[in-house]
């Protein structure tokens, strides 16, 4: 769900925002808030997905599934060394293999325009342009053949030799290469308020710990796929991405084409989680090959290639220092976050973000450092910064609760800020406390015995834990058009993407209400760059941004229709673009909030941790479709469970490659890992964006790993500060509880 956005990864202040005055003016000059609450009442009611029938029957075609006559198949060959230069590419014997049409590499591939990128120059787009190898798994050649079997065999037969150079893939918080990144104005890496050292020195209670999270991978079920072809002078592309318009823009620039000469469509997308936000190599090489061969070319990444070419969440090491009064009030909060990027792009995992938002402290300091390693370029993965950052700060808060003898919720209530702790700006809304209260009630938190290791079920030690969650809820410019058809129906066109979020259905509900027409009279067409600029399905900003454009277009259309006696055959169309409205937003911080609760069972003999139940209560603004909203929140929570217990990309320092780059080695939660999970929400009115929508694609994952780690402490008395909480880590750490198996550390 996560993607590059105009605001993320960024400081809260960077979210395009409306000042209090502007917001107030907006509500009087713009009827938008009432537009979405139109008479048909579609918004707020549960609707099954409009494309649901196509998905359950297999009729929905994803990017790699659209047939074309004369289709050729491309297969990437990737580097086997972590750093160096290509010495030779043995294309000749491969070209002689059956069915092989071309071998593209840095010496014969079309030249691309340098400096192109959605968020600034992106060196990962410069595929097959030079002999430099920046990491294991970098694309070095594309083999194109008549069939996928021929292409695969030829790519595997291609011999590439390298002049290898020494590499460094080892990350730690003590790495000498750590430096302050240039985050730019929208991605502040450091904040400082008050005298952190003085407040720490004066604190009665101090927590000072390091928390680590490993490399984590999106692993969307649909591998990235694209088919490119030239048709009537246009480069026509079907691609798996989170934003067809932005990808089309970059593709045009990269190939020195007019923006109008490129069309990108992405009707169905099989999951993304951030990995399909930016243009990726499969599309670039497909476009190259289609141009060179003048026939349609499809390139689908293999599962293993996905682990080196479409981004990942970098490992983090985060030191948290908390200083508090005996009653729990924070005097000092210091969040020092480190992570890594590649040698070619400086991606920054903004893990300190939650500490600028969630708690008040007299002194507050956040720092973000990054080191460049010979690894693939990390990228946005669901709740970038927020997810790993929340593991650190929410674990530390649980440690502070233990040290102060306070209930973890009570401790948090005592540190609830009036305004943005780092920015001093007002919150557009902040309903975190109702999340705690409602969540505690539903979960049965109130009766909890705070002492660790007091509950047991046979060989299982039981514990419960909780954590707070926050995620930015920004808005980005988008455009939409709506046509009133002569037959009384309406067609909405917007370059939105439905990557599994239910956006198609939600936008239909929004449009029906805004047009005050029954749901069945509205058809929404999405994911076509020809529909004009629209923000990505990312940063939890998609639905909020698109819905605003749709409601504005509906208002414009209704004004137009009021002046028309009869709708002409081609229909009557109105367009809207929210750029000016969004750019006028200033001066407030806007977030979704939540409270996560988990109950775990820990088998200290095997080291197994089982989550028995989870509950999340969220403040996510207006909920458009409760059915799909619940699915998305629970899906985020399951990814959080997976992050807590299973996910870990293991990099081999000798080869520089990933050891476990497939779905057998890289564990994601399976059905049997997932218990009963409930997600709900509290009232959270917030018309700072007049649609009232905050977006909920990412908030679900935030805080989950901490809630589970805190529950493991409650079960065993042992803190796990490194994710995932693997069996061997539990076994090695054992339990602090007397009379348990082994009476302490269990060794076998």
């Amino acid at each position, binding site marked *: 769900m996560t993607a590059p956005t105009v605001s993320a990864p960024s400081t809260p202040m960077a979210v395009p925002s409306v000042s209090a005055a502007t917001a107030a003016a907006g509500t009087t000059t713009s009827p938008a808030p009432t537009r979405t609450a139109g008479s048909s009442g579609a918004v707020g009611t549960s609707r099954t997905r409009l494309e649901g029938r196509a998905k*359950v*029957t*297999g009729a929905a075609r994803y990017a790699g599934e659209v047939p074309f006559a004369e289709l050729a198949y491309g297969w990437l060959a990737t580097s086997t060394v972590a750093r160096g230069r290509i010495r030779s590419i043995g294309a000749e014997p491969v070209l002689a293999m059956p069915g092989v049409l071309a071998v593209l590499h840095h010496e014969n591939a079309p030249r691309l325009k340098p400096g192109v990128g959605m968020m600034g120059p992106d060196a990962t787009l410069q595929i097959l342009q030079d002999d430099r190898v920046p990491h294991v798994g970098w694309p070095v050649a594309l083999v194109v053949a008549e069939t996928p079997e021929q292409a695969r065999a030829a790519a595997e037969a291609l011999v590439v030799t390298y002049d290898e150079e020494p590499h460094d893939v080892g990350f730690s918080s003590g790495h000498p290469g750590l430096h302050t990144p240039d985050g730019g104005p929208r991605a502040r890496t450091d904040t400082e308020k008050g005298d952190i050292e003085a407040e720490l020195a004066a604190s009665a209670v101090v927590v000072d710990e390091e928390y680590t999270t490993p490399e984590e991978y999106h692993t969307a079920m*649909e*591998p990235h796929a694209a088919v490119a072809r030239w048709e009537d002078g246009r480069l026509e592309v079907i691609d798996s991405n989170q934003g067809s318009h932005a990808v089309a823009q970059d593709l045009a620039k990269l190939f020195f084409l007019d923006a109008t000469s490129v069309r990108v469509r992405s009707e169905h997308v099989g999951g993304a989680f951030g990995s399909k936000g930016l243009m990726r190599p499969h599309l670039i090489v497909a476009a190259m090959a289609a141009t060179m061969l003048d026939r349609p070319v499809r390139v689908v990444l293999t599962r293993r290639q996905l682990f080196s070419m479409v981004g990942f969440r970098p490992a983090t090491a985060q030191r948290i220092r908390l200083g508090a009064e005996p009653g729990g009030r924070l005097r000092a909060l210091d969040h020092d976050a480190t992570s890594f990027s590649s040698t070619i792009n400086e991606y920054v995992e903004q893990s300190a973000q939650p500490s600028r938002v969630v708690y008040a402290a007299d002194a507050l300091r956040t720092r973000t450092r990054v080191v460049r390693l010979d690894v693939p370029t990390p990228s946005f993965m669901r709740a970038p910064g927020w997810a790993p950052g929340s593991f650190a700060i929410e674990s530390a808060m649980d440690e502070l609760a233990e040290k102060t003898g306070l209930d973890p919720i009570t401790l948090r209530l005592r540190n609830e800020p009036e305004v943005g702790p780092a920015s001093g700006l007002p919150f557009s809304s902040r309903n975190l406390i109702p999340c705690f209260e409602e969540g505690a009630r539903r979960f049965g938190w109130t009766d909890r015995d705070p002492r660790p290791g007091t509950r047991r079920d046979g060989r299982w030690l039981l514990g419960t834990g909780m954590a707070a969650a926050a995620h930015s809820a920004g808005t980005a410019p988008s455009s939409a058009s709506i046509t009133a058809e002569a037959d009384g129906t309406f067609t909405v066109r917007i370059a939105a993407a439905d990557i599994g979020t239910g956006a198609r259905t939600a936008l239909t509900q929004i449009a029906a209400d805004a047009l005050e027409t029954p749901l069945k009279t509205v058809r929404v067409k999405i994911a076509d760059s020809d529909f004009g600029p629209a923000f990505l399905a990312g940063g939890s900003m998609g639905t909020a941004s698109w819905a605003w454009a749709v409601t504005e277009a509906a208002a414009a259309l209704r004004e137009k229709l009021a002046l028309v006696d009869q709708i002409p055959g081609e229909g009557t169309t109105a367009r809207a673009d929210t750029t000016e409205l969004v750019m006028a937003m200033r001066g407030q911080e806007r977030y979704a909030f939540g409270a996560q609760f988990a109950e775990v069972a820990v088998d200290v003999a095997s080291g197994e941790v089982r989550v028995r139940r989870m509950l999340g209560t969220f403040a996510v603004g207006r909920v458009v479709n409760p059915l799909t909203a619940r*699915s998305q929140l629970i899906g985020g929570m399951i990814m959080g469970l997976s992050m807590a217990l299973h996910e870990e990309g293991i990099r081999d320092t000798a080869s520089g490659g990933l050891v476990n780059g*497939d779905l057998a080695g890289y564990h994601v939660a399976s059905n*049997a890992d997932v218990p009963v999970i409930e997600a709900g929400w509290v009232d959270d009115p917030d018309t700072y964006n007049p649609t009232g929508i905050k977006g909920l694609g990412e908030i679900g994952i935030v805080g989950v790993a901490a809630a589970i780690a805190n529950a493991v402490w409650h079960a065993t008395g042992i803190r796990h500060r490194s994710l995932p909480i693997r069996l061997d880590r539990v076994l090695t750490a054992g339990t602090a509880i007397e009379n348990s198996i082994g009476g302490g550390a269990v060794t076998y």
Partner: protein
Amino acid sequence: MNPTKSSAISLRVNGETHSLTVDNRTTLLDALREHIDLTGTKKGCDQGQCGACTVLLDGRRANSCLQLAVAAEGRAVTTIEGMADGERLHPVQQAFLDFDGYQCGYCTPGQVCSAVAVIEEHAAGWPSAATADIRPETGPPPLDDNEIRERMSGNLCRCGAYVSIVRAVAEAAAQAAAVRESAGDTTPDGGSGSGTVPAGGSGARVTA
């Protein structure tokens, strides 16, 4: 070995016979997707780890990415496209739609094929790793949530739709049991699809 060697085969898919010439290296999955244009069966990993390519082979679920097309000759292949009865969805498909047992939809065809087989495997009395008592005389275990989770764990869903998938499978299983009971079939050890779900094996969890 000549890597270009191909074979003329006929595949029986969803009751129809297809004659095609395939590269001997062609998997059943690629034969379905690239030769017969049945793209409902998905390629998630192409190495037997994710379950997205699950089809039914002679009524039993199999990863079609691990099966060579030439080896599937003579076997009955059922794909997601063969599940619905014309316009009427299979009860498992309907339950996935109603309970929102999916998000992006990419793992869904494999999940549905697995679920159809799970319900039959269970009804036929097959135990799973979650079955507490596997003695034949105790009869089929209740198809409770843990049984469904265990039996559906060969199909990964990265969107995290598991909670709704369990509900959908339970609902469809309860419907299938009701159909069997109304048909008067109470043979506990019948063949595929003819077993009985013990009383109490369904109701409560469907309303969860």
